[in-house]
């Protein structure tokens, strides 16, 4: 009889321990949304997916450096469920509704249009969603969210920093022109840059603003117009194939020699175009990423591990992807330290708000949007071919407070006020 009781008790304890072990090993499922097809896949989507997968693998293996040496998220392994961002905002809203049932958290979105569409849906679904790349400042300037965070800085600082840099390096600029893609990203970027230049140098003249169709690819007439415009400086927020097309078509015609050209999101083009980017081109990376990342042990680890795995250096999308996972891990583990062994979503959100964490590229402060929007410093540099390799020289760093609006102020208003705090 005692033996039977002993067997039952042992079996119960074994099952209980086994189930506890199984619970402890239950992976946290993270939905990843990034472009796997379409024109944004090559420059952003796939480099971002590679960043996500590499960091998840390193975290699960406990091979990430301090302060992220703990395996997974606080000891729990993480599992990524990757879906394609292609298809437009309507499709992404439907995808999010499906995905949210399969995962614990969602991390993703490159397109500003997608971010604007999914943010209210994430709120409605009460699903913790971390936006990692999209640029529009409108996410948290026009609305307030509890379940939505963005660990990448928004687009305002791309152009305020570019304007500051351009005028510091070339104080005699009297006129500007623009060539940007005719959708939210291009229009917002040009509006920010134009307003920043006018605020910093009143009386500056705008010669022409070319708004091209997205993925037009051919810019012969636009380049002729820019060359004839007489503008001292040309601003472009082109990306992907349009960016590469502009350089390939503009450089042989002297566009980059006759004008100061600012490519505010030009960094992903560096890996693709290399020395074809003419000397003197001003380049931004939407933050301290890629060649603009500070030379820290953390950055060296990320860059070399990425390069070893994918045979290409990480670009800013890869950096932002990595930072999103590091941010979520930081919030999770902060919630654990507050006493919750397996923190629930509310506890993670509480820990995430106003969090400051180490990102690859520098400190990330969730300091805008009531603690949901990240800021970082920004770095801008000038392209120069040295010894057959393209380098970024005269790199200047700008503190986040100098290039971002204060909490509660809209970017547009703040820029027009002359960056007044």
């Amino acid at each position, binding site marked *: 009889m005692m033996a039977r009781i002993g067997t039952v008790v042992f079996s119960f304890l074994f099952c209980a321990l086994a189930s506890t072990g199984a619970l402890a090993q239950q992976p946290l499922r993270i939905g990843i949304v990034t472009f796997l*097809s379409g024109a944004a896949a090559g420059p952003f*989507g796939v480099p971002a997916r590679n960043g996500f997968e590499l960091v998840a693998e390193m975290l699960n293996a406990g091979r990430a450096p301090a302060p992220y040496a703990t395996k997974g998220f606080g000891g729990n392994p993480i599992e990524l469920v990757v879906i394609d961002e292609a298809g437009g905002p309507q499709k992404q809203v439907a995808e999010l509704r499906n995905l949210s049932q399969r995962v614990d958290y969602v991390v993703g979105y490159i397109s500003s249009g997608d971010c604007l569409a999914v943010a209210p849906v994430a709120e409605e679904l009460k699903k913790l969603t971390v936006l990692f790349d999209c640029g529009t400042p409108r996410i948290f300037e026009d609305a307030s969210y509890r379940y939505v965070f963005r660990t990448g800085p928004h687009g305002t600082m791309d152009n305020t920093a570019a304007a500051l840099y351009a005028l510091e390096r070339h104080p005699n600029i009297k006129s500007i022109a623009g060539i940007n893609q005719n959708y939210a990203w291009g229009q917002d970027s040009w509006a920010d840059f134009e307003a920043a230049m006018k605020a910093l140098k009143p009386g500056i003249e705008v010669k022409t603003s*070319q*708004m091209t*169709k997205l993925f037009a*690819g051919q810019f012969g*007439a636009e380049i*002729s117009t820019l060359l004839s415009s007489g503008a001292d400086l040309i601003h472009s927020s082109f990306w992907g194939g349009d960016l590469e097309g502009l350089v*390939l078509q503009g450089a*042989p015609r002297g566009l980059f020699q006759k004008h100061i050209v600012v490519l505010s999101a030009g960094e992903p083009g560096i890996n693709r175009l290399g020395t074809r980017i003419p000397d003197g081109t001003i380049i931004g990376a939407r933050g301290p990423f890629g060649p603009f990342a500070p030379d820290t042990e953390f950055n060296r680890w990320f860059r070399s591990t990425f390069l070893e795995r994918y045979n290409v250096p990480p670009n800013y999308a890869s950096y932002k992807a990595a930072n999103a996972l590091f941010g979520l891990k930081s919030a999770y583990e902060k919630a654990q330290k507050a006493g919750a062994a397996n923190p629930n979503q509310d506890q993670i959100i509480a820990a995430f708000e106003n969090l400051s964490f180490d990102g690859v590229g520098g400190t990330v402060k969730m300091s805008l949007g009531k603690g949901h929007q990240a800021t970082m410093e920004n770095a801008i540099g000038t392209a120069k071919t040295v010894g057959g390799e393209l380098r970024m020289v005269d790199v200047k760093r700008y503190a986040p407070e100098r290039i971002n609006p204060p909490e509660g102020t809209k970017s547009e208003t703040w820029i027009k006020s002359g960056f007044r705090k």
Partner: protein
Amino acid sequence: MNDILAVLFDGVVYSSWLFLMAAGLTLIYGVMKILNIAHGSLYALGGYTAATLAGAWLAAGQAAIGSYAMLVAAAVLVGLVMGPLLERGLLRWMYGRDEVVLLLVTYAAFLILEDAIKLIWGVESMLLPDPYSLPGNFHIGTLAYPVYNLLLIAMAILVGLALAWALFRTRQGKLLLAVIHDREMSAAMGIDVNRVYLVTFTVGSMLAALGGALTAPMIAVSPGIGVEVIVLSFAVVVVGGLGSLGGAAIGALMVGIVRSAAVRYWPEAELFTIYFVMALVLIARPKGLFSAPEARKI
């Protein structure tokens, strides 16, 4: 004066590019009554194949001049492989059905080919800038233009003249015109209509691929480049009149020059110009500028 010359030249360069695609599209429609949406994919395939062949040629250290031959070879290769494959393997099973069904079939082919391109070449863009920059520049006033633009114009003129000669001066061309005029009567008179279809679709595919191959040195060859092209070519063909080669040439010139003028003088309206031209023409001539009168069958 320089401004006007620049507008005209930019417009003609753009028109040349448009014509290369529109010529193939209108030829296929004229003969087969198929609005071939897969034309965009054939353009993209031409671009990718050209970037691969000419890129390999240059990487092997061969003479740069040979890279231009590689561009043309890529177009011929894509045309000879994809034309018969699509026409014999897919479209011939659909002949006799409604034009809308055929349009949907070519749209399906377009989607399949877009994914096939991604499977073969991946999602990274391909660059082939050397043929564009190698011939150097010439000047119109103070503006520098790549000599490559002149090659593009010359090729468009050559293609237009060759097509016109083949259509109106050769026996095969006259047979083809007969099929355009009345397919059933042509078949009754002993013309091998299926062969005419095969040749027409292959030549049309080659022209689409040639457009892509000649554009490859100017752009980043990347996923989705065929999408925009099909919309623009369709607009040009509609302006000129579906099935009219001369119409495609005039339509391309109108669209190209109006767009170029808009870019310079009214950039906000640039996106709208192509459709503005199309709308104006269709109001005046609902079947396009040079649409042939249709014989009414009783």
